[in-house]
């Protein structure tokens, strides 16, 4: 069998402050194939964002390694572009300039000025934000900001796209719309995606596999669920699909029966 595209090998994460130390992640191992869409789901505080940050290289794991195409990840880089939870667009740049900043940096040596402009526009088209390209982030809605965040990440042509609860702060309708867009982009570009979420429907709808984390401290992977739904998936048809319902209830059972968050009870 060939080596996995992205692999997390026995990741431990211990935060120590003063004398006290807390183990956040315990022996987390995961292999991801190229083009796979993986969701990581768990209650808040289970360290799933920490895990994503470790893959991104923004946080260094205490023990264990992340390998991307066999190479150890030890620093952040555009090959693992992150869509941050709160979009993190630079407010002094326009929508276009925010994406262009990434394009200019990543493709400074490989694309000409015209090509970089076209590539920026191409990615704005992908998220349907061309119409607002000269607006500032403060002038567009929350959903639009997140779309620009996605465009910026996609524009880096990452090997792995990391989504950190990308739709968490959005209303249900905007969220559904963006989920559809992400599915469409995934179908078109076949990116490898790692997404953090705490929305069960979102996880089942978008993922090929759902990684369920046990509660922290010392969280580990509790279960990995395959979602054998054919693509393209349509949310309305899925609502009554037997496989969808089975997957959904499996995740719900994991989260609310076996690993119920004690404080939330």
């Amino acid at each position, binding site marked *: 069998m060939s080596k996995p595209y992205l692999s997390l090998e026995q990741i431990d994460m211990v935060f120590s402050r003063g004398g006290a130390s807390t183990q956040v992640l315990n022996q987390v191992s995961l292999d991801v194939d190229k083009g796979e869409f993986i969701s990581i789901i768990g209650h808040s505080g289970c360290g799933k964002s920490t895990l994503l940050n470790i893959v991104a290289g923004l946080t260094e794991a205490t023990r264990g390694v992340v390998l991307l195409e066999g190479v150890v990840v030890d620093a952040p880089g555009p090959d693992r572009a992150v869509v941050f939870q709160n979009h993190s667009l630079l407010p*002094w740049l326009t929508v276009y300039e925010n994406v262009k900043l990434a394009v200019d940096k990543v493709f400074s040596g490989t694309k000409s000025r015209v090509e970089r402009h076209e590539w920026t526009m191409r990615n704005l088209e992908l998220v349907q934000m061309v119409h607002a390209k000269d607006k500032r982030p403060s002038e567009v809605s929350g959903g639009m900001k997140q779309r620009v965040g996605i465009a910026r990440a996609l524009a*880096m042509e990452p090997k792995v796209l990391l989504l950190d609860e990308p739709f968490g702060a959005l209303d249900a309708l905007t969220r559904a719309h963006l989920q559809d867009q992400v599915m469409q982009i995934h179908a078109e570009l076949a990116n490898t995606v790692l997404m953090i979420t705490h929305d069960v429907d979102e996880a089942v709808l978008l993922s090929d596999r759902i990684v369920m984390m046990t509660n922290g401290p010392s969280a580990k992977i509790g279960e990995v669920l395959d979602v054998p739904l054919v693509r393209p998936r349509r949310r309305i048809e899925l609502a009554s699909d037997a496989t969808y319902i089975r997957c959904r209830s499996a995740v719900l059972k994991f989260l609310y029966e076996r690993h119920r968050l004690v404080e939330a009870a």
Partner: protein
Amino acid sequence: MIASPVRMNPQKQPHTQAKVVTLSTPRSSVARRRFPQRLSALAGHILPPLVTLAFLLVLWEVICSSPTASVPSPSRVVSETWELIVHPFYVGQGVDQGLFWHILASLKRVALGYCLAAIAGIALGALVGQSDWAMRGLDPIFQVLRTVPPLAWLPLSLAAFKDGNPSAIFVIFITAIWPVIINTAVGIRNIPQDYRNVARVLRLNQFEYFTKIMIPAAAPYIFTGLRIGIGLSWLAIVAAEMLIGGVGIGFFIWDAWNSSRMSDIILALIYVGIVGYLLDRAIASIAKVVTRNTLSA
């Protein structure tokens, strides 16, 4: 049906039916009213200060009207300084120059000292804001030095530079630099972690990070420091020039005092105030343009 002839010739209608006329032409009346409205809004802003000013001038005139008064009345100030007012560009011997040249000389010193302070202040502030070591090492020194009154630096700088002009510029520099350093450092410390993460994912180098993230993100703070700095500079230059002599509005005031020309002093004070105000407004409007997009999204 009765209403239609009423609208045809409104001016002849009795009083009770005048309402029909005003209601039927609201659009044109709004358009016509816009200009006078703006005028009245403008008057609302300009009139109060004018009235206050006139009142104060009258009060001053009354209080200082006696011929033995030690401070001249406004009318005397104007009549005694008329030559200075109408000939601001007069060029004479030595320090005998028109007021424009005095102010220009002061502004040149301020401009030079202030620009150096802005550049050095932003650079040092960036260093202190970025590095914990620099912060711990330099901040206590800054906190002590910034409390030293500007003029206390003058003897030292005269000893070092052995000339008045560079000494004055140094005093401006040392006066203006502290608020710039401190505000820049605070601004850089407050850059959200998100922006730092974006920079890390993009692998921006130090220079790119400085120009593309740090300076724009900290711009509102930096401009606060720059604005405080320009005010302090203008405060300090007048005092410094009194001591170093030469052409400059500070020395002009000192010279006038030595020759008991009270009216000249009063005129100079008015000019100093106006120039100081304009400097502050200039920095404030630059700040407005530069930082209008830095508000968080």
